[in-house]
């Protein structure tokens, strides 16, 4: 089959799956699930084949035109989309299979799989989009699909609130993206992404218009990729089922923001000021989120904070100018983060609790070998300990920061240290529970939600993702020691990777190991207190546990402001416009009544008055005339 066929199959299979699962077979759960997984397999296979096949000319069909502008729906097959598409395809398939086990007992299983297919369709169409309009449409649909999935358990008020929050927060960013894309279209007079990139490639100083466009696009990225100050929706998004979190945090939704930065990398490179601001925001976010993870006890929340922080890392790399570094981390992170979420899901499924201390106390790690293996592979990769993949990609990012200000570099090291620390804290608390330690489980486990040991449907994807993580690690390590001429991901991207010597890498290695060692002494060692250093500083712990009070600040400022304006508008409406109209009406009636009261009802008076007026008129006109 030709690559065009694959490209089309890639996009339309999930759409078809979505329609069949949600509209036709919603109540026949297993049929719906089978259809969606079949569609997911087609997309995954097609995306891998296309990725192996290398860049091809864009496949597109005229969708319609408005005026002289032709809008095409199509598939752009360059190195960036191919790699990302393959990542999305593979991870989505793994998560769909995993959901078979995780969602087996859910009454809304058919609907769930339908939404998963919608999510996949939106994300793939977004990634492969060859023009700005398609980018924007599917960017929005990705947001919609995650709204539906986060709020999947719609009877749970917290899930509904989280879904609402996610949608509105990302919408705030979307304003920027929307305006930015319109201005970009105005500035370049084309919707075609490749032409736009050619226009900006190599131009280092784009001037104020480019800066504004880039800043607006970055606003959209901040919303979608949960960067400060719009990051608060992501931890709450954990209210969705765990497979959704896995999808949301690895290859879709939040990855869309980073991907957009990579997609328009040339444009951002031409906007120096925006790029520097983006770098600062990304670094700040990376540190901020890791501090929150240090005290969190909810396994999914720890992972959520780490996602925010790692997304910050990716944007740091991209903003510092290295497309490869950011992209590499996006890829490695997608796999190990998906893996970690699936692992977390398996533990939660088994123990009925999200609390890492409680999970550890139940001894889950001893019986769940595959899951624990996944936890260690994913965790070590996340912590950036060599020789696993996270180390290589994070090292590339730190290396790419070469010319940046020392504060940024220091920030990156700090975030890397905290990452290693909280990751190993989680690993030790789960795998080396100590009933004697000071840490107390957060209440009894909820047996209603405990479903027993994970089935093959859940273990299979965990194993597969572990293997992929190890494979990427091996390839990168091979490139490093010279067994391979070039890093495979770099060669797909057509970018040169930065070959660092061991000496250059030493600080990164040392920092990561330092974090891990600190975690070992506090949580892993026999007889350790298992409370952590932060717990000894109650003020700091409260600050971190309340997420720096950013949510509270928003609630008391922005949300209060919006509801205040709404209240004022409502008051103006009822008392001003609406009430005003009523007052006009009332005044009319009242004045009529007043005038009526002047009437005696004596006809003779009226006639007499009329006669006198008439006579006066006659006299007056007579004198004039």
């Amino acid at each position, binding site marked *: 089959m030709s690559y065009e066929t694959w490209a089309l199959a890639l996009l339309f299979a999930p759409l078809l799956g979505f329609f069949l699962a949600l509209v036709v077979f919603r109540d026949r759960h297993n049929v719906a699930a089978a259809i969606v997984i079949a569609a997911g397999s087609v997309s995954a296979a097609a995306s891998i084949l296309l990725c192996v096949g290398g860049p091809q000319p864009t496949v597109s069909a005229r969708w319609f035109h408005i005026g002289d502008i032709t809008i095409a729906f199509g598939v752009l097959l360059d190195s960036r989309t191919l790699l990302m598409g393959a990542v999305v395809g593979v991870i989505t398939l793994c998560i769909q299979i995993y959901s078979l086990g995780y969602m087996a007992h859910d009454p809304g299983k058919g609907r769930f799989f339908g939404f998963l297919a919608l999510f996949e369709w939106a994300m793939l169409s977004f990634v492969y989009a060859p023009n700005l309009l398609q980018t924007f449409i599917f960017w929005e649909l990705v947001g919609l699909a995650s709204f539906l999935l986060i709020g999947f358990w719609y009877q749970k008020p917290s899930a509904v609130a989280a879904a609402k929050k996610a949608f509105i927060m990302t919408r705030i960013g979307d304003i920027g993206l929307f305006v930015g894309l319109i201005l970009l279209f105005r500035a370049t007079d084309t919707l075609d992404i490749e032409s736009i990139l050619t226009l900006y490639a190599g131009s280092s100083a784009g001037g104020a218009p480019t800066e504004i466009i880039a800043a607006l696009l970055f606003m959209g990225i901040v919303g979608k990729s949960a960067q400060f100050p719009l990051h608060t929706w992501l931890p709450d998004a954990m209210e969705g089922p765990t497979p959704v979190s896995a999808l949301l945090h690895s290859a879709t939704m939040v990855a869309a923001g980073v991907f957009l930065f990579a997609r328009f990398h040339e444009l951002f490179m031409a906007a120096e000021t925006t790029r520097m601001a983006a770098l600062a925001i990304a670094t700040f976010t990376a540190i901020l989120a890791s501090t929150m993870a240090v005290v969190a006890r909810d396994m999914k929340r720890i992972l959520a904070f780490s996602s925010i922080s790692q997304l910050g890392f990716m944007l740091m790399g991209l903003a510092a100018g290295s497309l490869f570094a950011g992209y590499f981390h996006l890829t490695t992170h997608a796999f190990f983060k998906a893996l970690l979420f699936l692992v977390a899901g398996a533990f939660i499924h088994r123990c009925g609790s999200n609390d890492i201390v409680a999970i550890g106390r139940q001894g889950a790690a001893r019986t769940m070998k595959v899951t624990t293996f996944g936890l260690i592979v994913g965790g070590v990769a996340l912590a950036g300990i060599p020789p696993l993949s996270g180390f290589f990609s994070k090292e590339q990012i730190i290396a790419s920061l070469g010319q940046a200000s020392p504060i940024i570099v220091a920030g990156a090291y700090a975030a890397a240290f905290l990452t290693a620390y909280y990751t190993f804290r989680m690993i030790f608390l789960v795998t080396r529970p100590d009933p004697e330690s000071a840490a107390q489980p957060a209440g009894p486990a909820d047996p209603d939600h405990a479903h027993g040991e994970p089935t093959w449907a859940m273990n299979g994807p965990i194993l597969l993702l572990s293997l992929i993580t190890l494979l990427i690690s091996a390839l990168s390590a091979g490139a490093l020691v010279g067994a391979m001429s070039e890093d495979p991901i770099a060669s797909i991207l057509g970018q040169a990777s930065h070959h660092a010597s061991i000496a250059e890498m030493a600080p990164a290695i040392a920092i990561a190991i330092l974090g891990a060692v600190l975690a070992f002494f506090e949580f892993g060692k026999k007889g350790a207190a298992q409370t952590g250093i932060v717990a000894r500083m109650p003020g700091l712990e409260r600050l971190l546990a309340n997420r720096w009070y950013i949510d509270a600040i928003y609630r008391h400022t922005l949300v209060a402001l919006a509801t205040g304006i709404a209240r004022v508008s409502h008051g103006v409406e009822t008392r001003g416009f609406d009430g005003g109209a009523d007052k006009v009406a009332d005044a009319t009636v009242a004045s009529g*009544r007043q*005038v009526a*009261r002047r*009437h*005696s*009802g*004596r*006809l*003779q008076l009226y*006639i007499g008055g009329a006669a006198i007026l008439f006579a006066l008129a006659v006299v007056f006109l007579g004198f004039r005339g």
Partner: protein
Amino acid sequence: MTLPAFTMFALLLFCMGLYAVLARRNLIAILIGIELMLNAASVNFMAFNYFVAPDPAVGQIIVLFIIGLAAAEVAIALSIILAVYRQRRAIDIEQLTEVKG
């Protein structure tokens, strides 16, 4: 007899009618006043017709119209007065102030 004499007579007649309409309390009396005013107008028409108009027929036609109108008006007004009397047992205009605000 000259034109001013006729117009003076008509004016006198009109003022008497107007006075009756304004000052009398009995509805029948008011009706008679209206008749007087109409007749004043008729007299004026005839007078001007006789002394001024080139074609005497026009004034006469209008006067005939007025007489016809007056007859109809009396018929209607009397029936209204009767109806009012049946309902209110009075035809005193001081008591008929329904349109008061």
